[in-house]
């Protein structure tokens, strides 16, 4: 579904990721783990078109999407939930959700799916997004992304700033979505939860992929255990 080859990207100060390659097959959940500053966000921003990579290829369902503006990539079926969420704070929950379906009108089936997944959003339909708690905002961000009925859901650290209980709830929702056949790509520092969700994973260190494998394989690599799972 998604294939990244030799991606090099960064900001005016220099490249942050150097020639990395990874792929996500249809129906898979794939995680990219790494510490703060390893380049996870940069990779995602380059994939979804918010950042122009300096080299490399990004293929979505076989077609190149490198250099395409973000709004066109979004319409192709990749929904990105950034760590900062990027909601529309002065608009209501309902308005945020319906904009997720842009340029179409939201269809009731998808709204129902989102409300089933996050009952809190149904209670707060008329509340302004900016006045909600961090956990509710995260639910709304995921809900808004789902409104586009994406083929690939990309999440950058969905548990940022969430209390452990809410983080767990967020991953439970992702698990439900996986069960429905949604393809998921997630970047995380909270590795245990991401590992339970994912089929495979990549470890990103200093802008390069240092290890890869199935989640079970990665869980047994001593370095990964020590650095990300807190097991000595």
């Amino acid at each position: 579904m998604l294939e990244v080859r030799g991606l090099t990207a960064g900001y005016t100060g220099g490249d942050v990721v150097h020639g990395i390659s990874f792929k996500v097959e249809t129906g898979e959940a794939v995680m990219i783990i790494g510490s703060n500053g390893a380049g996870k966000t940069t990779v995602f921003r380059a994939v979804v078109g918010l950042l122009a990579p300096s080299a490399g290829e990004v293929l979505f369902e076989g077609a190149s999407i490198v250099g395409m503006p973000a709004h066109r990539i979004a319409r192709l079926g990749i929904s990105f939930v950034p760590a900062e969420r990027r909601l529309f704070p002065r608009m209501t929950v309902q308005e945020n959700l319906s904009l997720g379906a842009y340029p179409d009108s939201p269809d009731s089936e998808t709204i129902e799916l989102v409300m089933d997944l996050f009952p809190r959003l149904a209670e707060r339909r008329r509340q302004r997004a900016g006045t909600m708690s961090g956990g509710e905002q995260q639910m709304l961000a995921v809900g808004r992304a789902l409104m586009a009925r994406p083929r690939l859901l990309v999440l950058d650290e969905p548990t940022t700033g969430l209390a452990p209980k809410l983080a767990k709830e967020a991953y439970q929702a992702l698990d439900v979505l996986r069960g429905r056949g949604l393809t998921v790509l997630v970047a995380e520092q909270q590795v245990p939860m991401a590992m339970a969700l994912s089929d495979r994973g990549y470890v990103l260190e200093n802008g390069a992929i240092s290890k890869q494998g199935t989640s079970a394989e990665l869980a047994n690599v001593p370095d990964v255990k020590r650095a990300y799972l807190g097991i000595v």
Partner: protein
Amino acid sequence: MTANILDGIVLGLQFGLLATGLTLVYGLGGVLNLAYGQMAVVSAMVVLFTMEAGVPTLGAVGLGLLAGGLFGLLLDLTVLPSIYRRQGEARVLLSLLVTLGLAFIVDGFFNWRFPLRGLSLRIGGGPIPIFGVPMRRGSLVASAITLAAMGGLLWFFRATITGRAIRSVMEDDEGARLVGIDPRRMLRLILIVTGVLAGLVAVTRSMVAPVTVRAGFEMTVSALIVTVVGGLGSVSGALVAGIILGIINIIAASYIGTFLSLIILLGAAAVTILIRPSGLLGVRE
């Protein structure tokens, strides 16, 4: 006093509509359009010349509004791409310089070719009493049109998909792109809309007082002051501030003198900035 307040509301509604055009473009693209008053003047001149060519008033007004929209589209196609490549403060400053230059060119051209021309639309019939004050029909028609335009704008922003998409770009440009909205296209649309709004202000204003070829800068300055008081990027702020400043302006003009009214408006803006830097209804960054 009642008469002053009513006249102030008539002027204030127009201030509000004028400022709305400026504030929308700023909120959407971080571009301050100082050629805005000239957009209105171009519209007024198109109405004037087509009427002189024998086009019926309503048709001429239609052509004038079209000209305003076309001015906006041309601005977007020719001048804005270079401005839009900059970010943040550099973009605001460059937009100030470029649109001010454009304003000088348009203003200079009209002053050179048609130095004494002005548009006045006369609405027939005698005055109509409102709260015991006889109001000119022109003022009432102008206010009714302005109110209808504002209502239409508010409806567009609340109820239509495109209107919501425009608001979303104002709230979070990156979030909008992530749901599939092209901010550049929204800015183009809003420039066309504000061009039509400028034309509408020119037309309604000309029902109350002549709109001359020299009216451009005063319109831009009024719009700018109202925008600052209302809060940059806030449509409802522009409307509220417009009406308040309209009333202040008329009262100041009648008790102190017309020559001081712009200074008093500026004073009101200065006081607002001191008390509430983000304007009456502006968003605090």
